[in-house]
């Protein structure tokens, strides 16, 4: 298997691997019901590359490092057909409770043993290295929400992107609705969170805001809401594409390129999937409290603590900034009313000079009011939203940490189970019941496999988290605050 991947350059191999996983995922998706049914990556692998080729056309860009998706797909077709018979037995396992269903790593390891896992890791590294050479030239702007549809008015946000080398066109405009963004986020989250990547959090749904807009209220608050959402989505997309791994994800690429996306059904706030998610979240919270991990790695301990602190402080900061914004708005409102009142006073004053002075005062105050308002908005959009994003990001980071803990605990559980089975096995050996013995031994083998895999999972998560965290830290803050400071002045 590994040999077959040799021919194309190593960079490709990694990506091919990647693509394969996506195909494999297609398989899984059809068996697991929690994800949306009209999945773009259809369960039939050969048709997907065909789809890919047809949408992207035969354009081949002359790029040294990254190849077009079409090439990869073409290669993938070969690989897939060879692999498919092997995949069946694993699929029949069904999503085992000890392993989260959609982990690509889980797919790889039992199938190919250690070799491919290493290759996978290596290839991921290479992807990252490759990217460091590639000029990151992507520009996404989410703009102009428009209302579409009469009954069920939906806001469509369009966005444009430019000049990214791996994409086929230079500039594209696509229209997406909010639930599409959420759908993308949930897909990415389910795919990557478990192996330790920090997926940027998507903006939240707000039923009140949306209904206001839907009803058609053309007042200030709904305009603000739309603006808020728009900038949040823009930032979300920028963050997502900045992440080198997420950028290569076909869902992301499809999101950015194709003109039609199937409705992401499971993102509706009051749907069954939503409730399931809430239940899951609650269960997770309970779990978190009961799992007590024996932190052997000091680095993690320290980072965890740091993030906790950071989270706390950022939340406080965010709250204060929101307060400030609120008060500034109040100030501008009050200044406006004072201006009016001063004008009236000026009117009634019969001493002409004083009257003039007072009306001048009124005008000045009005201008000040405008200024205050602007400042409030600037503060709001730059500062407070950014902080909110960071708070959410940190929650995502914490989520990743939590997953790591969960994986660890599962690993431990599996080990315990294994031990028990082994004991049972030895007991059976004593009692000399051949068939039961066989069964026990099978179970043991399976458990051993799971244990190994759990271990691997854990290590992989740890490693990825480290990388992620180092990427996360410094740069982002700089970029964020400097423009904000410029804006105040």
């Amino acid at each position, binding site marked *: 298997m590994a040999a077959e991947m040799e021919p194309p350059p190593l960079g490709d191999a990694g990506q091919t691997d990647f693509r394969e996983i996506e195909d494999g995922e297609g398989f899984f998706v059809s068996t697991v019901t929690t994800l949306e049914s009209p999945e773009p990556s259809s369960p039939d692998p050969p048709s997907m590359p065909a789809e890919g080729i047809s949408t992207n056309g035969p354009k081949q860009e002359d790029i040294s490092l990254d190849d077009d998706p079409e090439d990869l797909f073409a290669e993938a077709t070969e690989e897939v057909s060879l692999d498919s018979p092997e995949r069946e037995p694993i699929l029949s396992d069904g999503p085992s409770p000890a392993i989260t269903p959609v982990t690509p790593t889980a797919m790889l390891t039992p199938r190919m043993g250690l070799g491919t896992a290493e290759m996978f890791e290596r290839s991921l590294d290479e992807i990252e290295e490759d990217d460091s050479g590639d000029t990151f030239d992507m520009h996404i702007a989410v703009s102009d929400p428009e209302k579409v549809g009469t009954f069920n008015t939906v806001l469509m946000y369009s966005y444009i992107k430019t000049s990214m080398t791996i994409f086929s066109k230079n500039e594209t405009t696509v229209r997406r609705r909010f639930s599409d963004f959420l759908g993308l986020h949930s897909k990415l989250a389910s795919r990557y969170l478990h192996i330790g990547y920090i997926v940027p959090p998507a903006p939240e749904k707000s039923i009140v805001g949306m209904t206001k807009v839907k009803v058609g209220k053309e007042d200030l608050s709904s305009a603000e809401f739309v603006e808020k959402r728009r900038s949040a989505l823009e930032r979300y997309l920028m963050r997502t594409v900045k992440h080198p791994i997420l950028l290569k994800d076909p869902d992301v690429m499809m999101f950015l390129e194709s003109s039609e996306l199937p409705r992401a059904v499971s993102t509706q706030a009051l749907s069954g999937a939503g409730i399931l998610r809430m239940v899951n979240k609650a269960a997770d919270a309970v779990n978190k409290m009961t799992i007590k991990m024996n932190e052997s790695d000091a680095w993690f301990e320290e980072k965890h603590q740091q993030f906790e602190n950071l989270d706390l*402080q950022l939340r406080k900061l965010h709250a204060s900034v929101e307060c*400030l914004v609120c*008060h500034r708005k109040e100030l501008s409102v009050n200044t406006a009313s004072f201006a009016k009142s001063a004008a*009236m*006073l000026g009117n*009634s004053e019969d001493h002409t000079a*004083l009257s003039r002075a007072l009306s001048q005062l009124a005008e000045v105050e009005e201008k000040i009011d405008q200024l205050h308002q602007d400042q409030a908005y600037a503060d709001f959009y730059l500062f407070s939203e950014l902080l909110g994003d960071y708070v959410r990001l940190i929650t995502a980071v914490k989520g990743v940490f939590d997953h790591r803990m969960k994986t660890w605990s599962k690993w431990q559980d599996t080990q315990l189970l294994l031990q028990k089975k082994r004991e049972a096995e030895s007991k059976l050996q004593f009692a000399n019941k051949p068939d039961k013995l066989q069964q026990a031994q099978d179970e043991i083998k399976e458990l051993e496999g799971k244990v190994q895999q759990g271990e691997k999972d854990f290590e992989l998560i740890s490693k990825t988290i480290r990388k992620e965290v180092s990427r996360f830290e410094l740069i982002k803050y*700089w970029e964020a605050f400097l423009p904000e*400071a410029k804006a105040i002045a």
Partner: protein
Amino acid sequence: VSSVNVDLQTDATLQVDISDALSERDKVKFTVHTKSTLPNFKQNEFSVVRQHEEFIWLHDSFVENEEYAGYIIPPAPPRPDFDASREKLQKLGEGEGSMTKEEFTKMKQELEAEYLAIFKKTVAMHEVFLCRVAAHPVLRKDLNFHVFLEYNQDLSVRGKNKREKMEDFFKNVVKSADGVLVAGVKDVDDFFEHEKTFLLEYHNRVKDASAKSDRMIRSHKSAADDINRIASTLYTLGTQDSTDVCKFFLKVSELFEKTRKIEARVAADEDLKLADLLKYYLRESQAAKDLLYRRGRALVDYENANKALDRARAKNKDVLQAETSQQVCCQKFEKISESAKQELIDFKTRRVAAFRKNLVELAELELKHAKGNLQLLQSCLGVLKGDT
């Protein structure tokens, strides 16, 4: 220290000021210092200690004095109100556990500064009242006033008890009803008619402006408070680590801290120059309205007396009595009218001058602060950019 300038003539014959004030738990003791060359006083320079209630007593004695019906009685100073400040201090004390030491000391300092500011203001208000009385050609000769200034011991003026307060309340109700009645009477004199309408309108608008300016300043202050909190949170963030990001945080925190100081100053200055001005003129215009009311009342009485006289002459009964009462009313009315005219003109002059002074100062201060703010931001930006 007088926040509202009423443009008084500094007359050497009688100069009054409040040289000192002491704040005790729920009362303030003012030291009223007088310098005078008038023969009525035993000494040329002396001081007494007075409390707020005694000021009110003096004011009320003016109001109740029929002789002064034709003058604008200087409005009484507002009660010293430290309740709000005290409440905040208490809340701060309760919430001490929930914030960091720096935050706590900072907020405490702020509250103390606020307390001090309120204190200064109330002293100024009382002083202005006394100065106005001293500057008024007739009122300054009032005996009660002299007693107030000179009498060494406690005037044993007790605050009005409940019954008296109820009486006052009813009196006010009657008065306002009457006021409406009187205001409906058209005045023969154009000047007064004009003044009446003007004052009414002006009074309402000043009230409105005063309320709105208060609100504006309050939100300004809360914004400044928020900036304070942001500054301290940033500071905590900054001290957690010594990486570049954290140094950055520290600088931004400093920036916010300074901005907050400026914003707080702006709010305070606005308060002083604008809000207080408006509040004072609110009270003054009320006093002027009261004057007009009294005059209007006198006019009505005069007209009634005229009618009574006519009736008496017609019936030829009690003519003399009617005549005398008519005479009395006539005199009263004319006296009031005369002085009222002058008073109102003075009022206008005073008002214009006060507004001018305060608005000019307000503008200058706002400019100064805005420039300071701008400089601060620019320097901070420079520092930040230099670091990048």
